[in-house]
Structure formats: structure tokens, C-alpha cells
């Protein structure tokens, strides 16, 4: 939307209302993290700023476009709106974006099939001229999360939007993540030069290896290569598909002595948050005694050369494929990340290789579920329960065991679509845990394996364990959904013979269509990767604190407000969120006021705006000018008339004539 008045400051105040589902609150915070990772837009709890976004559970999912400067601006996340892409979509509206297909130039790229639109819904296919909206010099984006799907508002089975390039018919309407162009537009509109929590990405495609340096005082160097004789034969970024590109870093343990080391250090990085997640792919085909250690070198006044601190390491059986690894860091001083390869004892025909590093100031996932040979699974699995696979059991940091069930070829009712379900399972700590399990949010994220974390369009869903959720049995007893799996679950047996209980599952049959699954980099090297998180979000059951000194200039009924001063106020009825106070024993309204608007009148029933004042001033000026002009003209007329009469009285009998005629 054109107009600077519609922009928010780059840090947007928000208020999460009590009406929101707890799961929705958790997903909203995840959406904010994506904005922080990929743009310079930040969100902070409302502290009394004149304008803020009040997020509530209304009837549906909706938002206004841009900053309306009305105090509290509502944004609704209703039932079934608690998906990250839906929330990002609504916040993009609030930031000032209309839908992609309402661009001024949309007819060059899509055809609106007016006769296929439900009666009375044609107005949903408006477009805005380039005097009202700007495409920010970004090409039309079929993969925008702001684009309608082809079935939007249709009256039958035929699409209402047809893309001029047919290949994009099933691309429009994606609800996974921001597209590249969505991000470009946000970053242009808000003059972002960097994002808030992203720190570093490196695919080692350039000779400068992202400013990484070889360590000194070690025995060997990491090599910048495209392949190694003993493997890997390709990098992970391109999987060898792009001729002339596809580099990675390799530390060979095929030569040298046991104990020989090679250090590779990142450029200096400056943390803001104090916690980071380092993610990368590695290939370990040396000896099982070889090691890859991750250190950080922290700098401060006491340690100008940096102090090393070990963060973690990798050691294990050699494998002939690239593996994904993540590591939580907790650094708050300027630092470098140090990759240390150590040759172990024994024969090696390979070593360690590293590719596609990402470092961001975000929380790491709790676990990884990697499914190998996925296309084979897709080709051979039936739909329904026969094609369902379960993840290993994971344990959260609180001790709860949980598991994911994945219908590879969909359920019987939704074949051709990935279905995902989240289950609690019996585990090692069940006797000391609280049951029913309270407010743990489980998230399954199918990773888009784009090498740059900022460009990943991963697909994720979250469910939250509501300890009050129950069903009533025939005998009247309550069965709590998220109760101890030993009580409400079924006994199952792993392939290794381990027996345990699996609780009931909650999830969705429509996690991701196979068309979208085959797009982007969800399947790479024939593998898919799920990043799994279980997080305690019980803190979100508490009401978000209100600012201490400011009354909320609220506009909807669901906003918490300060109680009225007296019973007198109960029936007085201040309108437009005016606050009633008692003055000299009488109720009086204190009206809401914004930066450029206010309410007035006995009950705040009249709205005023800055523009009204300007109009009044101009009108008054014009009226005064007109009155003065009238007085002047009248005065001149009267004086002139008086002078003529006087002259006629003084010169009687003189006749004026042209004597030269």
C-alpha cells in the first residue's frame, strides 16, 4: 500500500489476548522468529506505545492492511488459523501488503475466470492501481504466500485463477513460508539492510570460503574441493548437478599421524541474543576414531587472542552419505566458530567434509528424524495405515517421550497428501512426570533443504498438549487425551523388540500435498529431514501484562481494560473505549486519544482527526477573507458615491464636452 503513514516502526508492539488458543500463541511466536530471521522486522510486547497490534481469537483469520494508526489494531487468529504461514500472511497484511493477485499488473500474469467465481464474491478479485499500490519493483510472484490458490471463491470445480504460464497453476496459493520475493518486498518496504537473527551462511561456493581462515599451529589444512577420491563424490549444496560448482571443505585423515589436527575458523561474529544455533551437513568416511569438534573462540579485553570453549563434537561409524547436524551455542561476546578435525588411530580412506553451514540466533530443534530412500517409500507405500511410519521415540528436555506418525501416501480419506500425527509415548521418566501432560507444544518441520536458511520454505505444523482435553466414556469417566500413555495408549513393539505404550495422536491429514513435497528441496539426495521440537509453552497460559501507566486505547470488546472507578460508571456508557472516571460525584468520560485522532463529546461519541482541524482552519480563513473583502468593496462604493454627490453640488451649470471634436 502506498503511503508512509501506513508503515510501522521496524519493531512492532503486539498484545496477545487471552482469547487466543495456547497453541496459536506458540505459533505466533514462531512466526515472529521467522520475521526476525529473514527480515529486520521485530516484534515486542506492547508497552504503551500509541499504536500496536492486538492479536485475538476472532471468528476467522483476518487483518487490516498497513498501520492504520488507530491505537489498537486488531488481527484475528481464529479456529484453524493457527498455522505459521497463515499467521505470517496476516502479519504481512498488517505490514502493508495486499494480496499478490491484486497487483496493478496482475492481468499480465494471471487470468481471472469471472464466470467461475461464486455469486457475489467477484469483489474479492479487485486489483489496485499503481497510484494505490506498489510492486516495489519486484516481479510478479506466483509462489508468494500472499497469492490466492487456484480454487479461491470458486462456484464449482474449475479454478478461478488461471496462470498465464501453466506450470504455475499448482504453485499459487502456497502456505509454507515466505517466498524469496515476499522477503525482498518486506525488506525493501522497510529499508532492511540485514536481518535480525541471521548470522552466517556458507556453501563454500566461492574461493574466499566466506572469510573462513585456516588455523595456525595445527598439522594440516581443510581443503576447498569439489570431490574426494574416497568420497564424497559431490558436495551437498548442488549434489553435483551444476557443472563447475559444488564445493565443500574436506579434512583428510587418510594421511598423517594419529592426533594430527586441522582448524578452520569462521570470520568474527557479533552476537546480540546470547544463544545461537549452528547447523551444517557433514560427511564422515574416515575412521571411527576420527573426530570433528566444534569450538567457539570468544574475544574480550582479557583475551584479545580469544579463549576457546568446546561446544560439541562428532565421532562415530563412517557413513557414505551427507548427514545433518545442529548444535546449540550460548555465546554473548564477539566470537569465531572453530571446526577442528582430529585424525584418530587406525586406517582411514577418507576424512571429514563440511558443507552448507548456517548460523543464526535462534533456538535449535530438539531432534532430527531423517527418512532415507524416501522416493522408494513414496512409490511402494499404500495410502492409509499400511503406509504409516513412526519416528523413533524422542525425549524432551522435561522428560516426556513422544513420537511422530507419518502417512507417506496419505490417509484413506486424503490419499496423495502427507499426513502427520503427534503422539506421547511411554518413556524413561513417566513416574516423575505430570499427567495429563501440560502445555507442551510439539512441532514437526519438514525441512526445505535449501542451503541458505533464509531461503528455506519449510513446512511445519504444531500441536499443543492441552491437559484439560478429555472424552467421556460410556460409564461417565473421563479419558484425558494427553494422559500417561501407559494409561490411555496402546502397547506397541519396535523392530528391535522394545515394547512401549503409544498414546493417541493429534495432527492433520493435510500436512503437505505430494506436488509440493516434490517441489523445492524437501527431498534431497532421496532423503527427507524432519526437525522435531517439543517445547514447554505453559508460560503462555498467563495473561500478557498490560503497561502500567497507559490505558489501552482499545477498540474491541475483547481487550482487557482497567475496571471502572465506580458503580456510577457501570451504566454511564462511555463510547469508543473512553474510560469512565468519577469527578465531583458524577461520571465523566476520558476519551481515547491517538497521535492524530481523538474522541470527544460527553460520551466520546464524536471522532476528531488532525485533518478536521486543518479543514476548520482553512474554512475559517476563507470566511474571514470573504467578509473583509465585502466590507472593503462596500466602503469603496460608499465613499465614491459620496464624493460624486459632493462634486455635483460644488460645480452647478458646467457642462463637460469634447472641445476638439
Amino acid at each position, binding site marked *: 500500500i502506498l503511503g508512509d503513514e501506513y508503515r510501522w516502526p521496524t519493531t512492532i508492539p503486539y498484545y496477545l489476548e487471552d482469547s487466543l488458543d495456547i497453541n496459536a500463541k506458540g505459533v505466533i511466536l514462531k512466526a515472529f522468529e521467522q520475521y526476525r530471521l529473514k527480515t529486520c522486522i521485530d516484534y515486542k510486547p506492547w508497552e504503551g506505545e500509541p499504536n500496536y497490534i492486538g492479536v485475538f481469537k*476472532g*471468528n*476467522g*483469520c*483476518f*487483518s*487490516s*492492511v498497513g498501520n492504520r494508526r*488507530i491505537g489498537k489494531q*486488531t488481527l*484475528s487468529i*481464529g*479456529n*484453524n*488459523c493457527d498455522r505459521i504461514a*497463515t499467521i505470517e*500472511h*496476516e502479519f504481512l*497484511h498488517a505490514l502493508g501488503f*495486499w*494480496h499478490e493477485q*491484486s497487483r496493478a499488473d496482475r492481468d499480465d500474469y494471471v487470468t481471472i475466470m469471472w464466470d467461475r467465481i461464486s455469486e457475489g464474491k467477484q*469483489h*474479492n478479485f*479487485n486489483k489496485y492501481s499503481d497510484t494505490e499500490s506498489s510492486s516495489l519493483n519486484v516481479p510478479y510472484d506466483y509462489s508468494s504466500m500472499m497469492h*490466492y*490458490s487456484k*480454487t*479461491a*471463491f470458486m462456484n464449482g470445480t474449475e479454478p478461478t485463477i488461471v496462470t498465464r504460464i501453466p506450470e504455475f497453476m499448482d504453485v499459487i*496459493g502456497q*502456505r509454507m513460508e515466505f517466498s524469496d520475493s515476499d522477503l525482498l518486498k518486506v525488506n525493501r518496504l522497510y529499508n532492511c539492510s540485514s536481518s535480525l537473527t541471521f548470522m552466517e551462511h556458507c556453501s563454500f561456493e566461492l574461493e574466499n570460503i566466506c572469510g573462513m581462515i585456516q588455523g595456525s599451529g595445527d598439522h594440516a589444512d581443510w581443503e576447498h574441493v569439489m570431490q574426494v577420491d574416497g568420497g564424497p563424490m559431490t558436495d551437498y549444496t548442488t549434489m553435483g548437478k551444476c557443472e563447475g560448482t559444488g564445493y565443500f571443505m574436506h579434512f583428510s585423515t587418510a594421511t598423517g599421524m594419529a592426533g594430527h589436527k586441522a582448524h578452520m575458523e569462521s570470520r568474527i561474529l557479533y552476537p546480540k541474543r546470547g544463544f545461537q544455533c549452528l547447523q551444517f551437513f557433514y560427511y564422515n568416511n574416515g575412521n571411527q576414531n576420527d573426530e570433528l569438534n566444534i569450538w567457539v573462540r570468544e574475544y574480550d579485553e582479557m583475551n584479545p587472542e580469544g579463549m576457546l570453549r568446546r561446544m560439541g563434537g562428532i565421532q562415530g561409524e563412517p557413513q557414505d552419505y551427507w548427514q545433518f547436524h545442529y548444535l546449540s551455542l550460548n555465546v554473548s561476546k564477539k566470537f569465531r566458530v572453530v571446526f577442528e578435525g582430529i585424525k584418530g588411530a587406525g586406517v582411514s580412506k577418507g576424512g571429514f567434509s563440511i558443507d552448507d553451514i548456517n548460523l543464526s540466533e535462534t533456538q535449535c530443534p530438539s531432534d532430527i528424524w531423517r527418512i532415507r530412500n524416501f522416493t522408494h517409500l513414496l512409490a511402494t507405500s499404500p495410502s492409509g*495405515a499400511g503406509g504409516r511410519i513412526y519416528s523413533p521415540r524422542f525425549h524432551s528436555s522435561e522428560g516426556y517421550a513422544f513420537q511422530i*506418525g507419518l502417512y507417506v501416501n496419505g*490417509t484413506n*480419506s*486424503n490419499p496423495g*497428501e502427507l*499426513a502427520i*500425527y503427534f503422539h506421547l509415548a511411554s518413556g524413561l521418566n513417566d513416574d516423575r512426570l505430570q499427567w495429563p501432560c501440560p502445555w507442551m507444544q510439539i512441532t514437526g518441520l519438514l525441512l526445505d533443504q535449501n542451503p541458505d536458511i533464509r531461503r528455506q520454505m519449510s513446512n511445519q505444523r504444531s*500441536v499443543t498438549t492441552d491437559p484439560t482435553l478429555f472424552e467421556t466414556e460410556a460409564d461417565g469417566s473421563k479419558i484425558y*487425551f494427553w494422559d500417561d500413555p501407559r494409561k490411555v*495408549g*496402546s*502397547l*506397541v*513393539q*519396535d523392530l528391535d523388540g522394545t515394547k512401549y505404550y*503409544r498414546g*493417541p*495422536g*493429534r*495432527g*492433520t*491429514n*493435510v500436512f503437505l*500435498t505430494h506436488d509440493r513435497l516434490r517441489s523445492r528441496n524437501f527431498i534431497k539426495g532421496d532423503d527427507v529431514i524432519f526437525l522435531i521440537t517439543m517445547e514447554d509453552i505453559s508460560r503462555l497460559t498467563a495473561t500478557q501484562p498490560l503497561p502500567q501507566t497507559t490505558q489501552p486505547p482499545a*477498540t*474491541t*470488546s475483547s481487550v482487557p481494560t482497567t475496571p471502572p472507578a465506580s458503580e456510577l460508571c457501570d451504566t454511564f456508557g462511555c463510547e469508543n473505549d473512553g474510560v469512565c472516571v468519577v469527578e465531583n460525584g458524577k461520571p465523566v468520560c476520558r476519551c481515547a486519544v491517538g497521535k492524530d485522532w481523538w474522541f470527544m463529546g460527553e460520551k466520546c461519541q464524536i471522532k476528531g482527526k488532525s485533518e478536521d482541524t486543518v479543514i476548520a482552519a482553512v474554512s475559517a480563513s476563507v470566511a474571514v477573507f470573504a467578509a473583509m473583502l465585502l466590507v472593503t468593496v462596500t466602503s469603496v462604493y460608499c465613499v465614491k458615491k459620496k464624493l460624486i454627490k459632493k462634486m455635483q453640488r460644488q460645480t452647478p451649470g458646467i457642462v463637460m464636452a469634447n472641445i476638439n471634436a
Partner: protein
Amino acid sequence: QPASRVIEIDVDGGRDQDIFDINEALGLDLVEGDILTDHVQAINS
């Protein structure tokens, strides 16, 4: 291994509903399906 008793709750009821489907099913008549133009709409909603 198949469980002896499986209970699965689909939070989407088996329907892949986009934002506009959700709002339309609720009878909302917002601009372009999910855009508020004034706060009267919000209060009504």
C-alpha cells in the same frame, strides 16, 4: 507394528482449508476474504 487401538484426531477435519475457505465458511464477507477495512467489522466479527 500396528497398535491394538489407535485414536487419531485430525485438527483440520480432513479438509485442506485455506484462509479464505475458513472465513467463507464462517460467513465473513471481508475485503478480499481476509482484509479488515474498518473496526466495525472487527467488532461484528
